[in-house]
């Protein structure tokens, strides 16, 4: 199988989020960047598992600047065979999807994987855009995926349950929890990753469709109002008068 896994770089979940004075950029000092967890834990690992089962190659795709190569090497250390970095600072989700689609359209990948969303923009936009651009089915929030011949069986998260179905390859798959188990790179993987091919290519032009107007920090949280455990009637009063749920 020929598999492409798209990975994104995001601030670590525990990072403190603050913005520059123009509210247009994240303050990067003290922020550690990681591979987006859904890309790493689920999309990449399921891609590798399918290669282990059927043979083939797993290519990793990243749209970003040279400073992201740490996460690209990590994906290679976890088990991807080769990597492509499109050397660009993307302007919006349409730009990211355009870059990936342009690369992928003549490569006849069987499956293009990515995480269900990034933990910074939380947009969940690129996967569906990419499927639309490539004109192939999109398997959204996938928790189970198997392939038999040219047929793909998937289970996906939906409100209040799940849906399972079959479709034909190729497809774009957005990965959610359950699709695979996180793999930690071992020493051999880390050493091998240094020798694996990492191709850097130039971006194509993409029309910007959406612009960021500004980031907005949240107002500081007011201190918790504590209720004594032997004063439950006060809590009931709060549920009635303040939260208005009873």
């Amino acid at each position, binding site marked *: 199988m020929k598999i492409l896994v798209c990975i994104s770089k995001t601030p670590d979940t525990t990072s403190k989020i603050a913005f520059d004075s123009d509210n247009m950029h994240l303050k990067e000092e003290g922020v550690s960047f990681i591979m987006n967890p859904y890309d790493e834990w689920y999309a990449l690992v399921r891609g590798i598992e399918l290669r282990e089962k059927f043979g083939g190659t797993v290519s990793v795709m990243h749209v970003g600047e040279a400073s992201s190569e740490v996460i690209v090497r990590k994906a290679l250390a976890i088990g991807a065979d080769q990597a492509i970095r499109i050397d660009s600072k993307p302007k919006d989700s349409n730009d990211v999807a355009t870059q990936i689609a342009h690369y992928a359209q003549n490569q006849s990948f069987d499956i293009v994987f990515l995480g269900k969303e990034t933990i910074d*923009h939380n*947009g*969940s936009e690129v996967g*569906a*855009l990419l499927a639309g651009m490539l004109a192939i089915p999109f398997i959204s929030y996938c928790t189970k995926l198997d392939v038999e011949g040219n047929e793909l069986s998937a289970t996906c998260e939906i409100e*209040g*349950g799940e849906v399972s179905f079959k479709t034909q390859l190729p497809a774009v798959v957005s990965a959610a929890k359950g699709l695979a188990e996180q793999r930690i790179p071992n020493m051999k993987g880390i050493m091998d990753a240094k020798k694996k091919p990492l191709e850097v290519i130039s971006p194509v032009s993409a029309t910007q469709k959406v612009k960021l107007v500004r980031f907005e920090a949240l107002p500081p949280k007011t201190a918790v109002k504590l*209720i004594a455990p032997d004063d439950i009637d006060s809590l009931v009063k709060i*549920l009635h008068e303040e939260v208005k749920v009873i």
Partner: protein
Amino acid sequence: MIATYIEVIDGKIKKSSLEALSLAKDIATAKGIKCLALSTSKSASAEVVGSCGADELIVQDSGELDQSQLIDWLCKLYSAYQISYIVLANSSIGKAIGGQIAAKLQLGIISGVNGWAAASPMQFRRSVFSGKANAWYSFMEDKGVISVMPNSIPVNKSYSKVAEISESSVNLSGPVFNSVNKELVKGKTPLTEAEVVVSGGRGLKDPSNWGMIEELADLLNAATACSRPVADSGWRPHHEHVGQTGIAIRPNLYIAIGISGAIQHLAGVNNSRKIIVINKDPEAPFFKAADYGVVGDLFEVVPKLNEAISKFKVEHH
């Protein structure tokens, strides 16, 4: 024109679709354009969408369409009706089709919208960095695809009109998905749409102790949820797991019982309007994110709370 795709489940319009329609109507009013509602179910009520401000309801009575057919239909209507904005609920369907429609129509997409401002150009707000900040976005052109985060925009049923019904009979390609099988938890509000959520963590000690969580949820007409360790150890089903790897929710009230409040858990719940935390450990990080807290043994506090709410309900009804 602005058009909202209306999802119907069990013969009823989903609340998240009416929220999307309410936002669309506000935009329609501000821009002086027509507000359409689009549905593939004849159960979609012209009275209900009319009360939310829809001028016209376009129905293609084809039953449930698969993803490719739905995209095909919406794209064809986009051209036929000269629509400028397509509005979707940011539901599992909305997430799956929004980007595909945008790509096919070469539109921008702003997803997960939880507010908007009638500036020129219009600005749309989304929660970013897992609930730690907001971001405002605008389209570069006066058109696009917008998906609305459930439980963010109030449903406004103040319009006293009935939408005019138009039948659509577009020939559709596909389907591309087959052997489709849905498994839904019957009779329960899906977590993403629930206004109140009662959630239990490891502090419950054993799955057999969930009776009091369910009792509290019943009393408050709430959905039940759990933390990651609880789902991972099989105490509760995975679809109840809220947090970064699970489901992100934004109810009016989130009650966290026996959950310490790890940052990954908070990432899924800190858009809740109010948070009540019950935990015996006063140092539990969740208290920093909470509006109200009870430092106490949940095995004493929760049964007492259930009893007090029951008593209150008897006295007030």
